[in-house]
């Protein structure tokens, strides 16, 4: 179980609820509103956010704090309200990962997907302090993809 999945299911249940609803979609993918959050232990700490009805359309995601514990995203109050998030512990954050052609990998820290851990409603939020972070924050890669 990846950190993403285990944190999603904490503390209430042992069944990992893995369907995430994004009522506004992702930026550029506004029409797609339902994703499955899938985690394979072998791929830890990466997980997949896959369109529920289209296996060919997926995003690799990562808990940004795993790579960058000092990340301090400032979630705009309107977004927190939209998601029903009252405190930080209500939120699961996922950074969208890009695997580049030359095999380096980056994560988007300006626009994390913020998910309410209880309702599993999410939104790609442009953080208020987006100017402090990159959409292509380099991930430390030990072993490139084959």
């Amino acid at each position, binding site marked *: 179980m990846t950190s993403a999945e285990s944190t999603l299911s904490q503390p209430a249940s042992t069944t990992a609820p893995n369907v995430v609803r994004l009522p506004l979609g992702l930026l550029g993918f506004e029409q797609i509103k339902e994703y499955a959050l899938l985690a394979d232990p072998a791929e830890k700490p990466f997980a*997949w956010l896959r369109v529920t009805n289209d296996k060919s359309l997926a995003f690799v995601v990562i808990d940004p704090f795993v790579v960058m514990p000092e990340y301090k995203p400032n979630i705009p109050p309107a977004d927190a309200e939209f998601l029903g998030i009252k405190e930080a512990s209500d939120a699961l954050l996922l950074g969208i990962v890009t695997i580049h052609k030359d095999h380096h990998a980056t994560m988007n820290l300006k626009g994390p997907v913020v998910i309410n851990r209880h309702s599993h409603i999410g939104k790609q939020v442009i953080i208020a302090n987006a100017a402090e972070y990159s959409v292509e924050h380099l991930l430390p890669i030990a072993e490139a993809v084959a």
Partner: protein
Amino acid sequence: MLILSRKVGESIVIDGRIQVKIMRLDGEVVKIGIEAPASVPVHRQEVYEEIQRNNQKAVMKEGSPLPKLAGPPKKPS
């Protein structure tokens, strides 16, 4: 698109609660002051477009091989 002419120091009001004020002209640069309730997110358009482009680039087919991260990943607290 509604187009209005404004002088420096003049404002427009949107929806009775959002004030957009022309602060200063500096060559081709216009400084704009925006006063809006905290519930109204205000961002430069570029950041939307940058994230949109990033999302498009990040699309993958599920099951594509993933790299391994360097170092033992720390557990989020």
